[in-house]
């Protein structure tokens, strides 16, 4: 069950993170400026349609998805569960209904998270789970039921076919292979921007 208050607080967190990402002050004019951008519109439409699906207003998502497709070229399923602080940097992002994504993740455009193309997947059970502070580069794809740890960086144009990842590495290649980043393991605090380790910004 998704309440209205939860939806509004999530949208506020998205605005805050986007403003931090672009290095602007959180004034009303800057918020209006950001509101027009394709990525932000995509995030807001996802939040609203996610609220509608769980409150018996499912018919509204038809119209919202048309606006989403025309304006931001996204196809984000309203059934997907995404935490606060989501940023869509580019366009053409497809997220399937069985995705569970943590807080403060970044999608840089042309991403696909899907399970439909693979045999032997039970769509009711399996899920794509992505942790907090992850970054998906432009063109990065995830095509298997997977459990991605916190702070993983998936580099551009890589296709992830693993089933599990440890903390403290980046994924690159087709199929994606692990590359260690040792200093990430030691760091306990994360910057909400781009999954970069620093002191937490409130």
């Amino acid at each position, binding site marked *: 069950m998704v309440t209205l208050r939860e939806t509004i607080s999530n949208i506020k967190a998205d605005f805050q993170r986007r403003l931090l990402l672009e290095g602007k002050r959180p004034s009303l004019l800057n918020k209006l400026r950001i509101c027009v951008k394709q990525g932000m519109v995509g995030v807001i439409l996802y939040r609203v349609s996610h609220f509608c699906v769980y409150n018996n207003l499912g018919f509204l998502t038809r119209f919202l998805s048309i606006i989403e497709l025309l304006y931001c070229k996204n196809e984000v399923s309203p059934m997907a569960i995404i935490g606060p602080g989501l940023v869509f940097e*580019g366009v053409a992002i497809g997220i399937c209904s069985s995705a569970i994504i943590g807080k403060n993740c970044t999608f840089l455009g*042309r991403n696909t998270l899907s399970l439909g193309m693979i045999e032997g997947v039970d769509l009711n059970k399996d899920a794509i789970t992505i942790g907090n502070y992850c970054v998906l580069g432009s063109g990065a794809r995830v095509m298997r039921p997977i459990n991605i740890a916190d702070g993983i960086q998936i580099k551009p144009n890589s296709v992830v076919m693993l089933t599990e990842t440890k903390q403290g590495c980046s994924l690159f290649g087709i199929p994606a292979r692990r590359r260690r980043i040792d200093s990430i393991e030691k760091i306990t605090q994360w910057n909400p921007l781009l999954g970069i380790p620093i002191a937490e910004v409130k």
Partner: protein
Amino acid sequence: MSQSTRQTIALLRLDMKMRCDYENKKLTWLRALRFCFLHATLSSIIYRLQVFFFYHYLKPLASLLSFINIIFFAVKIDSSAKIGPGFVMLHANFITIGANVIIGKNCILGHQNTICASPFYCEENLEADDVKTYLLEDINANKAPIIGDHLMMGGGSVIFGNITLGTHVKVSMNSAVDKSFPDHAVLLGVPARNVAKQSDQK
């Protein structure tokens, strides 16, 4: 680098001439008129005008033109990117060129290309003691790629990070380039490697 009126007209003419050279045709007035209604050339014309207004104290108009480019063609080119004469986009959709990118003359882009500074956390950019002082300004100051003349990019390919590419570089379809390469390189794969023969590299 400012861009005067005469320079803008020359750049527009050279862009059209490069496009005609690609199609093995001569540049005539009729063909130039036709290019104003072809979506690929139209978006490059809009980009040149955007840069012209950006350097002549008309930033609202520049942001309006970039907004038109984003909405109609999903082409997002930053005003601070420096692109030489003869800039051709074969299919203008989902192209992103980030801030402070430098590209030489006569470059040809396909569709769904991305050229940007690295959005990821990499160890090269900071030393061990610097972790706490690595703030947002430093991420924005990440150095963007510098690319020589006669670049050819296939569809879906990505160039990112603090790298330099030589002249006459060809990037194959759906590859991701994250290292520096010399002149006459042919890049293929994720991550990209040079597959040019020794005899060709002259």
